């Protein structure tokens, strides 16, 4: 039994005009204890929504279908009280902005201690001692002196360490991290990611990491799932997905990145068009209108998930053609 299993997860969000928009359109993935999976894609593709659905934090009025199982237990339809009891205890989430994830009016000790008092019934003094241990574990400098500090007295990187300490407080089995280092400086980013990986390893936690940063993912997670328009369009080991990308969207993302070593004045490959807005999904393959490989059949039906290598799949009917073309930016630009 997998720790986490999503099967054909569908989420429809309420629109301002009263209608519903399909935001997740059949997301399936599994995550084993101790494994690391990255969800990658551009804004609006459904990465964060997937995490929020797992956490049970979707906006009011959302409609869910399919299945989300944690430890084999179905979370869809779970009463809010029982979902809340899982949050923090079995699964926890780290958000992008450490400043808005922390309460500016409470000390670090009181914020880290909250889940401990709530879920584990620790006394105030025991929670304080445990908070100190957690702050030391996330390598916050001068941890004991900072127990009574407020978030504004810390730097961005230090705040994110505190957020991670809170997430880890009850030793969750699943850690969801949504762009945990995007707001941090490059040198601090690496430190925070290394810390996350170390903690995940030590506790045997599973990590679902969300990011738009391909290179960061390559160095951090074992498995990678590329999302586009509410679906996983490519899935495999990080090495396979990034070195032999089989879906045209994955190729487009890789080619569009500015890289050190490009000559000054090099034009970057772009993906024509834009991400389809909610409620206006094109028929068939969501990427077809922007795809240089698209043929008429692409828009006729949503493509099946095709195997393209061992443990490597792509939701594209043209993978044979795509894979026969070398993945260079020039190819992607030719239209």
């Amino acid at each position: 039994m997998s720790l986490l299993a999503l099967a054909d997860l569908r989420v429809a969000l309420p629109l301002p005009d009263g209608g519903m928009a399909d935001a997740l359109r059949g997301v399936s993935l599994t995550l084993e204890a101790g494994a690391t999976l990255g969800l990658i894609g551009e804004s609006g593709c459904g990465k964060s929504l997937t995490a929020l659905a797992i956490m049970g934090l979707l906006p009011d009025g959302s409609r869910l279908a399919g299945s989300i199982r944690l430890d084999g237990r179905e979370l869809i339809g779970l009463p809010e009280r029982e979902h809340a009891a899982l949050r923090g205890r079995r699964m926890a989430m780290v958000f992008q902005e450490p400043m808005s994830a922390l309460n500016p009016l409470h000390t670090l000790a009181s914020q880290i201690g909250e889940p401990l008092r709530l879920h584990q019934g620790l006394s105030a003094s025991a929670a304080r001692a445990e908070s100190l241990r957690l702050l030391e574990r996330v390598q916050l400098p001068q941890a004991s002196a900072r127990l009574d500090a407020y978030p504004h007295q810390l730097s961005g990187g230090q705040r994110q360490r505190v957020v991670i300490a809170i997430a880890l407080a009850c030793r969750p089995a699943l850690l969801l991290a949504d762009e945990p280092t995007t707001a941090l400086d490059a040198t601090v980013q690496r430190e925070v990611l290394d810390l996350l990986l170390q903690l995940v390893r030590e506790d045997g936690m599973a990590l679902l990491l969300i990011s738009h940063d391909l290179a960061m993912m390559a160095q951090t997670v074992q498995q990678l799932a590329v999302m586009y328009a509410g679906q996983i369009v490519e899935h495999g080991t990080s090495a396979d997905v990034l070195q032999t990308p089989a879906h045209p969207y994955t190729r487009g993302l890789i080619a569009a990145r500015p890289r050190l070593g490009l000559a000054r004045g090099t034009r970057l490959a772009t993906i024509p068009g834009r991400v389809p807005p909610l409620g206006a999904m094109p028929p068939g393959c969501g990427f077809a209108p922007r795809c240089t490989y698209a043929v008429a059949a692409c828009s006729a039906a949503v493509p099946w998930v095709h195997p393209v290598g061992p443990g490597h799949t792509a939701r594209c009917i043209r993978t044979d053609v795509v894979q026969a073309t070398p993945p260079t930016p020039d190819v992607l630009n030719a239209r």
Partner: protein
Amino acid sequence: MNPPLLHVEGLGKRYRLSRRLPWQAAPEVQALDGVDFTLLAGRSLGIVGESGSGKSTLARIVMALERPSAGRVRLDGDDLHALDAAALRAKRQRLQMVFQDPYGSLDPRRTVGHSVAEPLAVLQGAKAAEQAERVAQALHEVGLAPADAAKYPHEFSGGQRQRIAIARALIVRPALIVADEPVSALDVSVQAQVLNLMQDLRDKLGISFLLISHDLAVVNLIADEVLVLQAGRVVERGTPESLFARPQHPYTQRLLAAVPGVLSR
């Protein structure tokens, strides 16, 4: 010989923090310390460094939004901070800015055409008909349609909004655009469109960029010269090729080491 487009000498900025106790002297931070550089017309300069290194302070002083505590900023040879209000307003036609967040920098209740035309109306007092024509041209230059002028910001994607912000900077035909993290809020594919546009403006219109970014790969693409700032001081400078291939200063080496390299084949 003409004076250089932008000449910055001995630039320093000190901020006074609030005092902890009434009888103590207020502590000060040195946000910038002895920054010198020269930017020739048509050339572009990249400023890299981490948060707190003084990048944005430098941008604000070059834009004459703040006064330096020491040193001078000369634009076309004129000391920007010694100009009176009218002369400074005239100078602003040579100098425009693009900010990081395309969502926060456009007024949601004004049409795109109104926002783009604003510098033209304020700085040059252009007539309505001329404004409409120049708006259409500026939108065209950033790859948008003239009809987009009648729409509102929420009808555009993040990348399109950043192009609108660039169109607003372009409309007065500036010689220099100060761009503070212009693509860091954008998605990868959209970022590529905006970077290509910036390269076009540099190469076709001869616009100079003072590009502030924490992303070395972005700076590498746009800048002819790069300054590395740490704690308000320039610790290293050079062409992107030499600086990124053979960083000398430990801080530059640390910045480069933090760039994930797996995909940089």
